[in-house]
């Protein structure tokens, strides 16, 4: 039955990937394409939609694939399956971590992890700027001044009005995108 298969596929994707949504891409490709659920091209379209709708990327992809295979119930099953491992594992960790945190070695480990993650997020930022501002190439034609302008406005607002709700900034970026890409393109 398709629901059991969806459960199996997305539960294992949730269980065996560390490092979040994008680390899941190869595993989703393996599972979904090899089962003949989607062609590679269809899956790429799903990734594009998952990336531009609110919510975690992996959850969105699971919902889309689940919906495609088993309608609304399929979407719910796939989504629940991909988050279930997280939920169980974190519950267990959260239950014990307060006791763990007092150990020196746990603090040391956490310090090492935090430092490496700072570098990893910095790499994500570099990649995002390369894709969205430079347009994926070091050429004048592909440089996106609007994207740079939006970043500058949001950064300025965040620096000078620290209490501003980030949700407002996201809505503002969307509005600026509509205004300067759609109505008054440069």
């Amino acid at each position, binding site marked *: 039955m398709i629901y059991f298969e969806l459960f199996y596929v997305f539960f294992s994707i*949730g269980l065996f990937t*560390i490092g*979040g*949504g994008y*680390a*899941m891409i190869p595993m989703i490709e393996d599972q979904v394409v090899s089962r003949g659920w989607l062609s590679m091209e269809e899956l790429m379209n799903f990734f594009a939609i998952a990336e*531009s*709708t*609110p*919510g*975690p990327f*992996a*959850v*969105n992809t699971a*919902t*889309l694939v689940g*919906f495609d295979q088993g309608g*609304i119930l399929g*979407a719910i099953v796939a*989504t629940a399956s991909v*988050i279930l*491992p*997280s*939920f169980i*594992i*974190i519950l267990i960790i*959260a*239950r014990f971590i307060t006791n763990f945190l007092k150990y020196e070695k746990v603090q*040391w*480990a*956490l*310090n*090492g*992890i*935090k*430092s*490496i*993650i*700072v*570098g990893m*997020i*910095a*790499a*994500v*930022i570099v990649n*995002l700027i390369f894709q*969205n501002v430079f347009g994926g190439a070091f050429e004048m034609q592909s440089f996106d001044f609007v*994207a740079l302008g*939006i970043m500058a406005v949001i*950064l300025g607002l965040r620096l000078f009005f620290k*209490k501003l709700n*980030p*949700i407002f*900034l*996201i809505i503002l*970026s*969307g509005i*600026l995108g*509509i205004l300067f890409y*759609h109505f008054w393109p440069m």
Partner: protein
Amino acid sequence: MNRNLSLFLTFLKIGAFTFGGGYAMIPLISHELVEKKKWITEEEMINMIAIAESTPGVIAVNSATFVGYKIGKFWGSLLATLGVVLPSLAVIIVVALFFEDFLAIPIVANAFRGIRAGVIVLIISACVKLYKFSPKTVIGYSLMAIGLFVSLFVEFRYLSFLLILFGLVVGIGSQMIIRKVRGDKQ
């Protein structure tokens, strides 16, 4: 208002406005739960995110479950997780039902182009926050540089897992060596 209900509504809001996954969510959690509600401290949040990042599963879901548990034990974690996932589930089902090709609608595509640029700034603030709580030592800075450059130039399926493991091992190992050297001198 009931604390768990309020937690659910807060994560519903966070889920609805998280574009781009786990990292982009950090400023939202910080604004809602650290600054406005003061339910957790910034340092607790950063520790939880570092742990969420190093355990299997979707980072955004891991973080929501973890923060939820901290605030309201089991029910808190369940409601926070449901809250963060429900908006994407609903949006994706609506998109899949009614829009054959959602991203082909020009005004939608342009809004998302704007949002992608704005979200980069939110990810930068997440990175800065994490940096604030990382050790400012030679080892800390080296780990950051390694995380950045290895992620940028190496492409490998289990890279994020290996990097986090590396951070953990170096974090503990370096402190043990420092201890040992100091101990020998005395």
